[in-house]
């Protein structure tokens, strides 16, 4: 039988039972829409989070004091030496290293006149803004001087707005943890990252932050490196240098590459899990197809007998009914994608910030999924139709 004829006979059958076909298609459409909508949102979220993290640049290695270790005496005897500013400075001479940023973080009261705001305070150096790819809106960032820094501060855009309003902040004096600081710069707005307000921060020089918070050492050293070397190579050199200075490995290294890839893994898994949730409704749609095909085969038993008498082979009967299920599912798939596009449009209008990434690959995959569902749902009823005895089938009215 010709493909065009199969298609014609099958569409005619589906169009004859319009309402029934439509409802079955709707069932599949809801399933496909759910699966593709949820995975699209999942993939969008994944992209959004990774984007957030890689905004700091991907060629970055972080050193933190302390080492997570498992095991007997080693764990008990090892003592952790704090990471010092000298440790940080010693890394500058390593090959490929571009910037070294010592970091201490705390929080405290920021005062200007009568206004007080409690914010995060980050101690860093002059290279911090460049290393983290933060922009400056007014003035300049902290000066690049090591040791005995002047009391200078840079405000996040939110802090500036809260304390100064529209008035200029540059050159004014604020109190950070009770000490007088002069404002030299205001950061460009950076927005939130995973609920953490990057604009509600005050930056001060690292040595002043250490004494302000009364800490013995740094919380982190961020090292950026130039292109041309791998994260592993740079991390290995840093490890060697610090072991040389500390005698033991009492610190941990995290490369941005590593972090991004593990984050990516977690989020991919999440996307799949959410998609599987939507798959439940697709399963229900598939059951709808099975139901309708079983009914159809029963109703058209006499017709199957006739077709066999006219010379249709079992294979042709199988083909006809399988095509019917397949066509139902594909129509459902297309309709489902349309439904998803509609829902995404509404969502995008309602929540403009929502990260949405539509890829044609996944749309095709959704259609393919619909086709597979149709074939699986149709195979058992079609098989029954093909297996009918033509004599018995003809007697059915």
């Amino acid at each position, binding site marked *: *039988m*010709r493909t*065009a*004829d199969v298609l014609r*006979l099958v569409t*005619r*059958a589906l169009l*004859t039972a319009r309402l029934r076909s439509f409802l079955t298609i709707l069932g599949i459409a809801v399933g496909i829409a759910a699966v593709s909508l949820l995975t699209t949102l999942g993939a969008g979220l994944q992209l959004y989070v990774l984007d957030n993290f890689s905004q700091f640049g991907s060629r970055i290695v972080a050193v933190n004091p302390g080492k997570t270790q498992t095991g007997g005496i080693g764990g008990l005897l090892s003592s952790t030496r704090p990471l010092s500013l000298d440790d940080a400075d010693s890394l500058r001479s390593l090959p490929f290293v571009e910037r070294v940023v010592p970091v201490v973080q705390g929080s405290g009261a920021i005062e200007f006149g009568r206004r007080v705001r409690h914010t995060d305070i980050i101690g860093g150096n002059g290279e911090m803004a460049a290393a983290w790819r933060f922009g400056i809106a007014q003035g300049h960032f902290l000066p690049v001087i090591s040791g005995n820094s002047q009391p200078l501060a840079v405000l996040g855009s939110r802090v500036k707005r809260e304390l100064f309003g529209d008035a200029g902040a540059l050159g004014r004096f604020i109190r950070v943890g009770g000490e007088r600081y002069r404002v030299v710069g205001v950061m460009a707005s950076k927005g939130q990252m995973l609920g953490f307000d990057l604009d509600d921060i005050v930056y001060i020089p690292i040595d002043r932050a250490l004494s302000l918070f009364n800490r013995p050492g740094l919380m982190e050293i961020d090292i950026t490196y130039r292109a041309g070397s791998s994260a592993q190579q740079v991390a290995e050199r840093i490890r060697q240098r610090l072991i040389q200075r500390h005698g033991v490995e009492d610190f941990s290294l995290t490369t941005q590459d590593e972090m991004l890839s593990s984050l990516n893994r977690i989020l991919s898994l999440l996307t799949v899990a959410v998609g599987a949730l939507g798959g439940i409704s697709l399963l229900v749609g598939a059951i709808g197809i099975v139901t309708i095909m079983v009914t159809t085969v029963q109703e058209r038993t*006499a*017709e199957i*007998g*006739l*077709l*066999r*008498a*006219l*010379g*249709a*082979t*079992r*294979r*042709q009967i199988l083909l006809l009914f399988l095509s019917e299920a397949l066509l139902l599912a594909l129509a459902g798939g297309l309709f489902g994608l349309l439904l998803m596009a509609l829902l995404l449009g509404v969502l995008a209008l309602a929540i403009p910030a929502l990260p949405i990434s539509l890829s044609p690959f996944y749309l095709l995959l959704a259609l393919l999924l619909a086709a597979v569902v149709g074939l699986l749902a149709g195979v058992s009823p079609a098989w029954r139709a093909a297996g009918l005895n*033509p*004599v018995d089938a*003809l007697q059915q*009215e």
Partner: protein
Amino acid sequence: MIRLVDLSKTYQLGDQPVKALDQVDLAIEAGEYLSVMGPSGSGKSTLLNMIGLLDTPDSGRYFLAGREMNALNEEARAAERNRRIGFVFQAYHLLERLSARENIELPLVLAGMAPAERRPMVDQIIKRLDLDSRASHLPRQLSGGQRQRVAIARAVIRKPALLLADEPTGNLDSHSGAEVIALLEELNNQGITLLVVTHDPAIGQRAARRLRMEDGRIIDDSGATQPPSADSRHAHR
């Protein structure tokens, strides 16, 4: 053309085995006109289904056009049905959602013939059976007689050697019934082998060769005859 040797078929009806065909021997020449009569359950329909390759015998042999049919698999039997055998049923068995024309076309479609090739064949048969004005109608828009004419057109579109009619007038009034019979006889006149299963003695008597069945056996056979000439057929009408 057709030879049945010692053909038997037993059905299970509840837990009662029923002999639908009991060692039937029959030879039919090309172009013959046969009627099969007998009470319900005598095996008439089973005989027709067996000859039509819809049913398989438990034992015995069946030769169609010199070839043994028992040896064929389902695919080959379907191909034989498509090519050599036309069926006409009491209930017409038209596909309600297809037009008369599309119904007639079905055997060609199943055979995989190209639309350009089948169009003239369908046109010709529609013209010949006087269905021109009805070709695009759905079956439910046709009268019983017209429906059966469509079914007959479908049965002979492949120019089969054998036409099997199971109570072809059972659902028709006497006028339409007579028309349908006349059409079948006309086709027989043109050379097709015609086998009619019927309850109606008036129709059964018209056949040149009459079989009577009871309990799965052919108990009476008026004997193979030369197909009657067109003149004698006219005398009957």
